[in-house]
């Protein structure tokens, strides 16, 4: 199908994640133009594509898979030894093993990408199926042993390779070929149910990645989740720190790659993160017929005390109350839907509890219904559905959601579904996370990006992403409130995308609740007036055919 289509639209994991890309994207031509839309999170996707986490369940599952494979091998030995023999011969010849595919197209399908991997032959000690299975058993055993640790351990790939050689006798080259060898074995054994064999595949991915890369990765073993230290839940994570690794083959393979999003800001940071040289890099302003977005930075509550979700202030009762008053005032003047974003689930729970105790939540419910996003997808979908219904029938509703949650990323709150979005605080990442810390270290060493800069960039793009949910077309209108005193600082504010900044007037930078309320009232009245959709005078936003011709001529 792929080669007959003119335009192919799919999730960009299909292009970036090597495991999937091998199946789907291998038939693309070099001349194809690749467009990554909504690519503000592309670095995270790249990193996720090359990160593997191994838990106890994974290891147990993998052991089961191996048992099954051993059975299969024995069965084949008894019935059809010729096949195994044939495979062995193929590997000996050092051919690329997957069917009859032309060799130039095989690169995309390997999780580790350097070209040299395919030119080498599979090492001798894993060529035989039973040998390979026993190598995998040793690997799993070793990983099991590592997971038994009591402390958090952090290691680079090189020392991990060294350890594994010492303990289990598996060298780097064997690790490197795990993925290919497994694949070949599964083909030979005619195993089609890949879902069942997911666990062993994860282990092989892990092995191949560890064996291939000596830089840009780290292996972190955590015996328990930091938020719940009493429950043992050991996890071994191979985390990639270098987003450029996964996207590099795409840049090499295709002639033109376009990366675009509404919230790519600051735009000069992306080439650094992804390690490429942009041919053209442009930031476009929005052409709007009227000022239909109204961003505001709210720094103080109605009692003039500063509000913030800074660590030392977030549980302050005054701040919680001021946030509550802000929402309460806003629900009484904004029609239909309001969306609120909090910095984390735990903070949302805490603040809603405290609003409930002080009766603020009850007062909010007098004006609008309240819906809350939870970590459960089904529950959230139900809440969203009812939220939409409440907006439709005029009852009005508030949706409490979390930045970086599912809702913040993919759900639109356009038109009356979101007339106002309030961003409570700055959504910084959980800075004590080991993975984040090691990534920050890596970024600092390799790309000279300061920790603070990266954290702010990441938080602000999330914030922009959240508030960008409310406006999806020119006919739409919406207000955005950034409720944190830190937004008024230049280093934070300047990282917001241009289309928000251009509407952020100086007078709206340091507001208190009552001032914001007044502005909101005025804005909503103004936006409710009928207007000329095509734009009038100098603010023409729709091009006619003549305009296009004229533009064409001036270009000539």
């Amino acid at each position, binding site marked *: 199908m792929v080669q007959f289509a003119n335009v192919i639209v799919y999730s960009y994991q299909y292009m970036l994640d090597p495991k999937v890309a091998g199946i789907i994207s291998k038939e693309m031509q070099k001349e194809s133009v690749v467009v990554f839309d909504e690519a503000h999170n592309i670095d995270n996707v790249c990193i996720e594509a090359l990160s593997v986490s191994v838990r106890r369940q994974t290891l147990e599952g993998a052991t089961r898979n191996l048992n099954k494979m051993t059975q299969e091998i024995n069965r084949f030995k008894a019935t059809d030894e010729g096949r195994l023999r044939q495979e062995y011969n193929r590997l000996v010849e050092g051919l690329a093993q997957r069917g009859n595919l032309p060799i130039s197209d095989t690169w995309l399908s390997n999780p580790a990408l350097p070209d040299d991997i395919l030119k080498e032959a599979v090492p001798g000690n894993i060529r035989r199926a039973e040998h390979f299975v026993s190598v995998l058993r040793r690997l799993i055993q070793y990983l099991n042993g590592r997971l038994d640790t009591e402390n958090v351990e952090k290691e680079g790939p090189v020392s991990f390779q060294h350890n594994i050689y010492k303990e289990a006798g598996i060298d780097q080259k064997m690790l490197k070929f795990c993925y290919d060898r497994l694949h070949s074995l599964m083909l030979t054994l005619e195993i089609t149910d890949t879902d069942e064999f997911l666990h062993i595949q994860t282990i092989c991915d892990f092995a191949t990645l560890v064996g291939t890369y000596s830089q840009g990765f780290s292996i972190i073993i955590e015996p328990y989740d930091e938020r719940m230290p009493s429950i043992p839940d050991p996890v071994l994570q191979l985390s990639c720190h270098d987003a450029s690794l996964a996207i590099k083959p795409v840049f090499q393979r295709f002639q033109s790659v376009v990366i675009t999003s509404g919230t790519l800001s600051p735009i000069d940071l992306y080439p650094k993160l992804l390690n490429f040289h942009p041919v053209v890099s442009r930031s476009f302003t929005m052409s709007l017929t009227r000022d239909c977005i109204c961003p505001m930075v709210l720094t103080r509550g109605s009692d003039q005390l500063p509000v913030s979700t800074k660590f030392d202030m977030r549980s302050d009762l005054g701040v919680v109350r001021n946030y509550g008053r802000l929402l309460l005032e806003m629900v009484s003047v904004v029609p239909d839907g309001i969306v609120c974003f909090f910095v984390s689930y735990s903070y949302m729970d805490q603040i809603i509890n405290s609003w409930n105790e002080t009766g603020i939540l009850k007062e909010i419910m007098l*004006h609008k219904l309240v819906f809350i996003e939870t970590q459960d997808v089904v529950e959230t979908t139900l809440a969203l559905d009812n939220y939409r219904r409440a907006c439709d029938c*005029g*009852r009005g509703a508030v949706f409490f959601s979390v930045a970086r949650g599912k809702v913040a990323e993919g759900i639109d709150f356009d038109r009356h579904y979101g007339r106002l979005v309030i961003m409570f605080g700055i959504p910084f990442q959980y800075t004590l996370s080991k993975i984040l810390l090691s990534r920050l270290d890596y970024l600092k060493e390799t790309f000279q990006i300061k920790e603070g800069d990266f954290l702010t960039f990441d938080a602000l793009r999330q914030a922009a992403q959240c508030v960008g949910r409310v406006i999806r077309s020119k006919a739409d209108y919406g207000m955005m409130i950034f409720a944190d005193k830190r937004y008024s600082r230049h280093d934070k504010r300047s990282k917001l995308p241009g289309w928000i900044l251009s509407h952020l007037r100086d007078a709206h930078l340091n507001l208190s609740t009552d001032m914001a309320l007044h502005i909101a*009232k005025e804005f909503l009245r103004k936006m*409710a*007036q009928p207007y000329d959709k095509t734009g009038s005078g100098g603010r023409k936003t729709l091009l006619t055919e003549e305009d296009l011709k004229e533009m064409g001529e001036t270009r000539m």
Partner: protein
Amino acid sequence: MCRRASGEVKPERDIFIKHFKNIPMADMEIVFPEKKNPTLTPLDWMKFLISAVVGLVTVAGSIDMPKADFCHSIICDWLLCYDIFQCGKDSASIRSSYADERSWESLQEDESGLLRPIDNLSLQHAQYRRRIRNLSSPHTFARIQKGLIRYLYLVLDLSKAAGETDYRPTRMAVMAKYVELFIREFFDQNPLSQISLVTVKDGVAHNLTDLGGSPESHIKSLMSNLGCSGDASLQNALDLVHGYLNQIPSYGHREVLILYSALSTCDPGDIMETIQYCKESKIRCSVIGLSAEMFICKHLCQETGGSYSVALDESHFKELLLEHAPPPPAIAEYAVASLIRMGFPQRAAEGVISICSCHKEAKVGGGYTCPRCKARICEVPTECRICGLTLVSSPHLARSYHHLFPITPFDEISPTLNYQPDMSRGKCFGCQLSLSKSGNNSNKPSLCVSCPKCKQVFCLECDIYIHESLHNCPGCESLRHSR
């Protein structure tokens, strides 16, 4: 706040006096906000005379006094008196009246920094022309049928939100004030139509007055029932109105005008169904919002063919409300011609005592008598209580007539054309005043308009008068008569 005369009143010294005639009009309004031209009240005159006597005594005390100084001192005394008198008044009341009239809004600063009153006339005229153009644009070519017999339910949202004070003094008071105006204007323009008032409070809709043609009874009943509480419910209001309007005969145009100040609606069921019922019953629902755009209101208006608007401020609200006074174009499939039986009752002689059919009591004096059943009726237009005949008077019919044949909007003539002698001969055809010097500032050439049919030229005042009140073009009429 007040401008005082500089220097004290001492006859021996030079005295600086600011004469009133040097103070620009704009400043004057700031000094005396409630007075356009300060004149002397009897009390002032008394004070002035007393001070004059005191002044004369001082003059007598000093021996050689120049005559000019003498005059000055009198004026100064008077000025001070006036100042004291003004300051003595309760300053709070001045402040409140100052804020209420918003006199600063009628001023604007020109390029040299002087305050000038805004040229209200041309602004008003521009506004009016826009309105005329909007009204006439869709049906300049096709003649549109209009519903002259309207049955309008006016729904007032008296929920908690109506008590908010962003309109002064409250939204509710402003609503009531302009609803009164609207009702009068409505009956003036649609003498054959009827109104009923409905209020929504505590989530329940009440029918305040039944359908009727008497503005006074509606207004009286509204004023005695003001008071806001609870939530608003759009569905309850629509259900109530739908129940009543369904019984209206088919020639009547069913309309609902909702003045909505709340931002949510608290409904017992599915409002979408109710909207569909209204659509099926061909009820035209319009909403005027007082605070912000609501999706459900917009949806309602779109579905039922009404208009939705949101008021910016008090004057805008008035404008939006009065836009609903002229009859709307009829819905296409609804506009079938049908004959209606009407009676033209005679006015009874004065001093006759008869039993009134509408009040159910004996009444003295002039009422009307139904031509079919001879019952006495107090007011027309109405429906006879006894035999159900529609009763109107012939002027009512005549007054409704102009909506069907509106005068075409006049063309604006650019000021340069104005000076062509053959074109206008410098006079307005309506009021016969010279066009060149009409308008208060002579440096700007005044605008004028001409009728596209008879090519006569009119001034702006006449333009508004002809379109809004007269509904006949004097030029075309005289042409027809002379022929």
